């Protein structure tokens, strides 16, 4: 049993409950014990840093300080939460004057955080780094055979802190392949979903979402698989707005990688939050329930016809 402190974050309480339910269900299968941080607070997302720097760090540091001393790792499924914790810990370690100020603020709530004590990790990172593809595949009961999926990482899942390639990540692809799915290759997988731009300038945000969805539509995928509640919200909930705005007719279900893992692990879709998505994933489930018949491996055509012209042989390598 592996034990991690667990920071669900505000989105996973409601809007992304499907992510929370499916991650907890999958963690149970993998033998991960998640110890939720007691009375955690919001991480401030990308908003607090825009207004006030030290309170933004102190807000995140309170959560880190609340992690029980016997736990040295915290896992967050939300990319913004994960990166805020990572950044706070790293910058406190790097800049002693920042650490001093943050701890002076924390002292007002009788707390203290020693930078370096807790390693912050994204849920995707834990799944792909702490488990080999073989270990994941060993839990697969209903392979995602016949499902054509695109992995979408967005920004802070891979930038600037992940050990995966920050521009061309591949770990989610390898995970989905281990689950039996067919994965497409495309370059926009780590582009931005628009973040909070839907609230500031809808036109700009819709363009970013349109760009992504139109690219993915051409790949004829059954679903786009994400690892962040912000990406899910923008691409799923705003898909209808984008269609209305551009006269497009996108219909791409946006699902969490943990939901796909759960399906493959044989967990009932209802326990994985299916049905909460705005763009229905019913077709995905339908295809998963009735996988296409296994294809006979095509007969290999000989590379060169025996009766063809003779090819030159390399010197000195005679046929024995």
């Amino acid at each position, binding site marked *: 049993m592996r034990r991690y402190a667990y920071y669900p974050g505000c989105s996973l309480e*409601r809007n992304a409950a499907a992510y929370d339910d499916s991650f907890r269900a999958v963690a149970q299968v993998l033998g991960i014990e998640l110890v939720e941080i007691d009375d955690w607070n919001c991480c401030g997302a990308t908003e*607090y840093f825009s207004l006030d720097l030290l*309170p933004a*760090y*102190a807000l995140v540091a309170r959560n880190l300080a609340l992690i029980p001393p016997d736990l040295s790792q915290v896992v967050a499924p939300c990319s913004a939460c994960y990166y805020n914790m990572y950044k706070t810990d790293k910058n406190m370690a790097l800049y002693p004057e920042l650490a001093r100020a943050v701890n002076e603020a924390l002292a007002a*709530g009788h707390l203290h955080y020693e930078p370096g004590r807790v390693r912050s990790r994204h849920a995707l990172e834990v799944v792909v780094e702490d488990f080999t593809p073989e270990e994941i595949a060993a839990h697969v009961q209903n392979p995602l055979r016949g499902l054509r999926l695109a992995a979408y990482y967005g920004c*802070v899942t891979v930038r600037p802190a992940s050990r995966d390639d*920050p521009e061309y990540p591949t770990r989610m692809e390898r995970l989905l392949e281990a689950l039996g799915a067919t994965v497409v290759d495309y370059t926009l997988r780590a582009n931005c979903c628009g973040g909070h731009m839907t609230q*500031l300038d809808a036109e700009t945000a819709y363009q970013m979402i349109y760009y992504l969805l139109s690219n993915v539509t051409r790949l004829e995928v059954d679903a786009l698989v994400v690892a962040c509640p912000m990406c899910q919200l923008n691409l799923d909930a705003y898909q*209808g707005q984008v269609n209305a705005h551009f006269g497009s007719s996108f219909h791409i279900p946006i699902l969490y990688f943990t939901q796909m893992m759960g399906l493959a692990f044989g967990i009932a879709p209802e326990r994985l939050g299916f049905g909460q998505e705005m763009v229905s994933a019913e077709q995905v489930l339908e295809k998963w329930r009735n996988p296409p018949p296994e294809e006979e491996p095509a007969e290999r055509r000989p590379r060169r016809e025996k009766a063809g012209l003779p090819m030159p042989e390399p010197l000195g390598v005679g046929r024995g």
Partner: protein
Amino acid sequence: MPEEVSINPFLEEVMAIPGGERLKSCIQCGTCGGSCPCGEAMDHTPRELFAMILAGMREEVLKSNTFWFCVSCYYCTIRCPQEIPITDIMYRLKRLAIRAGYYTASITGFSETFVGQVETYGRSFELGLATGHYLRHHPLQSIRMSPLMLGMVTRGRLSLTPKRIQGIRPLRAILRRAKELGGAW
């Protein structure tokens, strides 16, 4: 070496965050602007803005919309050959612009509503956030947004009441103290 005298107090001001001094080393290559997903909407590309900071154009810089269009995607940060923490500089410029009073409420209002909730409840409250922000700053758009909101509510994805954490008092004390201590940042 003679003591350094700052001839560009604005540059010093922008750089006064942990790691910010690398801004001085900008070589104007333009990788940041070329990498930016929102570059088109900005009145100055990040490269241009950095040239303006290096030229000490405080008011023009702080009145620019550039940093408000930063979505914190960190493409520029990882690609910058001079390793300038560009995203953090953008956050810095947002804070300086707010302090200088150069901003429009429809842009900063979202951050303010969000932070207000965190300070009141300790957690963010998406329904209150979205409706409050739209009604106040984009009343016409809020009509177009209503099917989205309704869909989210019927799928149980928006809570109707905010949730307050137990330790809201100590959290407020921490944030109050942090504000006193971190004034210059």
